[in-house]
């Protein structure tokens, strides 16, 4: 990093790695201290409650990644708790084979939990939200019924004793510290994921799936990884649960418990770690205070869930997000810095040409695109215009892989771009924006831009889990590049602000910054001028010209005739899916058929 006084990245970096880090971490440190010193001021009764909260949190930490970050509503996740509890207990008790050491039993339960986590979670990749939620409920019921029926192994309705961990964890407080330690580790690991490209990718999948794909995020692989992790920790939590209960029967694993886990995450707030921690503690402790109402605890949880959903969908996390309550400066102007582009995008790039050859695509009898040839050269701004329904956006969607042409091909440098494998476009350095900005509203502007560089990270999920050096290098690199990208669009002062607080025009530029993270060979823009003021359109135009100058090929799908005629080197006019005319702006503007197509008649 060179000294560039105008680029604001230094203070922001300090925010992450310095003073700001403490502001972020002190609640966890406080919890850590309270947890470690608990035996000093709490009696045995509260020790059990605290242990239970830790055991639940181990499961909820993993489930949080699935539900809070990835948005997969696995309501029946208690199935994994049941599985882990019985596996650990049965292996430690020696019902099936010679008794295993409790640690080994716990570890095996974790492994089995990982596998079943994938099995239970896998339908999420195929099914819509409600369907998936129902299937997880079905799993939960099935697992409990199997536990009831498989008497030879599980003891049926009579149950089995839970495992007892060896000294020093066999006493009440000893076991508490064991669970607390595991809970602390899970907190640390999920915090690491939350602040990694994987965590951001998960929120992108949840809130802006098409944009996630455009940024190269492969949903199946990432979700499976999360299922593995969530399943493993849920099963381990089950083993701890069995030990805490001393004795488990199938009716200990009710849907109520599953709902409790779920509600803890929602009360806590999506995309947060601290929120669900506090939520879990709250829900574990609540029945103790509402002593006469203990029978009503699930009822109260459900009421709480309803209230949260209707009144405070952001949960505790939103409530304590004081940073984002500070008012923003009102008359903000977007002033891009195209001079920074060469540093961001590099120079001497020759990606070849992007071509469409005789592409045709129909929707139910309507020829959306009808035998189109198109050539986009690097270093040029190529405009694509036409009346409504002429096939402009469809063409862009074919290039970016969202639609498969029924005939014809899209090629980059002579190599065919396979259709429908959307997330591979990023690897080819083809970036795009969308008609309506697709961003993660609850995440910061910087996080949103960093999503654009996800594929440039080298570290694996495991390395991020444990905050190993390669993960930290990735984070530093992505952070720096994203701040630079934000600086090029002139929005670096808003880096820490929640994205949904920004104006529409600013969101457009944030989307462009995200696209620039790919150092794209080709940048495809879908009506970026919509909703922008005249001044902003002029700045956008100059910015796009500067991008093209660095060697990127820019495809601009637009309605705004003035923008097109101002900045394009080359314009193609579509009408009814066919090319009507192609040439320089001057040629197009005086082309009689073009004027007719626009003005009708």
């Amino acid at each position, binding site marked *: 990093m060179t000294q560039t006084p105008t680029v604001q990245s230094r203070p922001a970096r300090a925010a992450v790695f310095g003073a700001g880090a403490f502001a972020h971490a002190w609640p966890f440190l406080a919890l850590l201290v309270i947890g470690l010193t608990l035996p000093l001021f709490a009696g045995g009764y509260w020790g059990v409650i605290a242990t239970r909260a830790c055991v639940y949190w181990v499961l909820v930490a993993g489930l949080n990644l699935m539900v809070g970050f990835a948005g997969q509503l696995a309501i029946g996740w208690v199935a994994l708790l049941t599985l882990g509890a019985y596996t650990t207990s049965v292996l430690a008790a020696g019902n099936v084979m010679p008794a295993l050491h409790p640690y080994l039993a716990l570890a095996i339960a974790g492994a089995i939990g990982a596998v079943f986590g994938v099995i239970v979670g896998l339908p999420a990749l195929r099914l819509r939200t409600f369907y998936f939620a129902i299937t997880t409920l079905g799993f939960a019921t099935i697992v409990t019924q199997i536990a009831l029926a498989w008497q030879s192994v599980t003891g049926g309705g009579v149950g089995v004793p839970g495992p007892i961990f060896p000294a020093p964890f066999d006493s009440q407080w000893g076991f508490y510290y064991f669970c607390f330690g595991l809970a602390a580790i899970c907190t640390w690991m999920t915090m690491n994921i939350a602040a990694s490209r994987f965590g951001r990718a998960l929120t992108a999948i949840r809130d802006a799936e098409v944009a996630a794909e455009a940024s190269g995020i492969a949903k199946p692989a990432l979700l499976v990884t999360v299922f593995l992790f969530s399943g493993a920790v849920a099963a381990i939590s089950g083993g701890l649960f069995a030990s805490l209960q001393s004795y488990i029967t199938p009716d200990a694993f009710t849907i109520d418990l599953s709902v409790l886990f779920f509600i803890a995450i929602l009360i806590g707030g999506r995309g947060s770690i601290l929120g669900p921690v506090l939520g879990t503690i709250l829900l574990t402790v609540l029945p103790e205070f509402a002593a006469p109402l203990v029978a009503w605890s699930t009822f109260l949880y459900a009421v709480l869930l309803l209230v949260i959903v209707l009144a405070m969908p952001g949960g505790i996390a939103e409530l304590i997000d004081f940073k984002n309550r500070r008012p923003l400066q009102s008359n903000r102007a977007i002033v891009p810095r195209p001079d920074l582009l060469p540093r961001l995008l590099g120079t001497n790039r020759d990606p070849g040409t992007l071509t469409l050859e005789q592409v045709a695509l129909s929707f139910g009898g309507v020829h959306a695109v009808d035998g189109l040839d198109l050539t986009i050269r690097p270093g040029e701004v190529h405009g694509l215009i036409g009346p409504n329904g002429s096939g402009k956006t469809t063409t862009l969607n074919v290039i970016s892989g969202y639609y498969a042409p029924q005939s014809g091909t899209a090629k980059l440098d002579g190599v065919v771009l396979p259709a429908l494998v959307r997330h591979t476009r990023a690897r080819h350095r083809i970036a795009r924006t969308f008609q309506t900005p697709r961003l993660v509203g609850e995440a910061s502007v910087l996080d949103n831009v960093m999503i654009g560089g996800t594929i440039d990270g080298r570290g694996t999920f495991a390395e991020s889990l444990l905050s190993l050096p390669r993960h930290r290098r990735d984070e530093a690199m992505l952070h720096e590049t994203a701040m630079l990208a934000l600086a090029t669009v002139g929005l670096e002062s808003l880096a820490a602000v929640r994205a949904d607080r920004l*104006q529409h025009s600013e969101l457009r530029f944030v989307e462009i910054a995200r696209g620039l993270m790919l150092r794209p060979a080709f940048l495809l823009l879908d*009506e970026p001028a*919509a*909703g922008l003021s005249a001044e902003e359109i002029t700045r956008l135009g100059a910015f796009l010209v500067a991008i093209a100058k660095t060697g990127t090929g820019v495809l601009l799908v637009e*309605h705004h*005739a003035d923008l097109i005629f101002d900045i394009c080197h080359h314009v193609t006019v579509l009408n009814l899916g066919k090319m009507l005319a192609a040439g320089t702006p001057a040629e197009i503007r005086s082309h009689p058929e073009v004027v007719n197509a*626009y*003005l*009708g008649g």
Partner: protein
Amino acid sequence: MPISAADPLLRIAGLSTGYGKIGVLRGIDLTVGASEVVALLGPNGAGKTTLLRAVSGLLPWSGGVHFDGRDLSGSGPRETAKAGLAHVIEGHRVFTQQSVLDNLRLAAYDLRRGERAARVEEAFGFFPEIAAKRHERAVALSGGQQQMLAVAQGLVRRPRLLMLDEPSAGLSPVLVDRVFVVVRRLRETGTAVLLVEQLIEKALALADRVYALARGAIVLEARTDEVDLPRRLEHAYFAIADR
């Protein structure tokens, strides 16, 4: 027919609207007098459809909209329809799984049964082609016939103002003329029409006055008998004049 400027049938003043955060229209002023045909032209993305949606209450808006002396603030499509403002939306969207007759009966949902039947027949009177197909499901109709059905839906309530959103889209020239003949007839029966169109020549031939909307604002207002209108329109569309 000269209308006193003080009380046009539809008066829009300083209207602004958009979709969520995206502002589309700013400070629109527009009037339609009783029995007038007003054309609203403009390039794609200018906001013509958005304007109609705001007036009929499908979108929230700020500013002033008065219809027949009544303030339309807070009115949704149901209230504006009852007040005599019919909106035929873009894309000839009719209920394809239901019969032509039922499509019209639905348009008259709030009326009493006897009145409903009478108005439906009236609407059929404008379009004998679809009257002949009254028991067929709308999916069996061609695009042009569906458009006629959609316009007929707008007419069932005997509106004082009929707003048509690109009725010519996707239609053959013959069918377009068919629809425009009906519009001419409407004017003679005292119904005002606000017509959003892409086909400039035909719209100008039909309308009394014309507005051009570009980039979210009115850029031109004129009577259709003024000279040099086509050239002025082209300039308004492409904003060439100011360079």
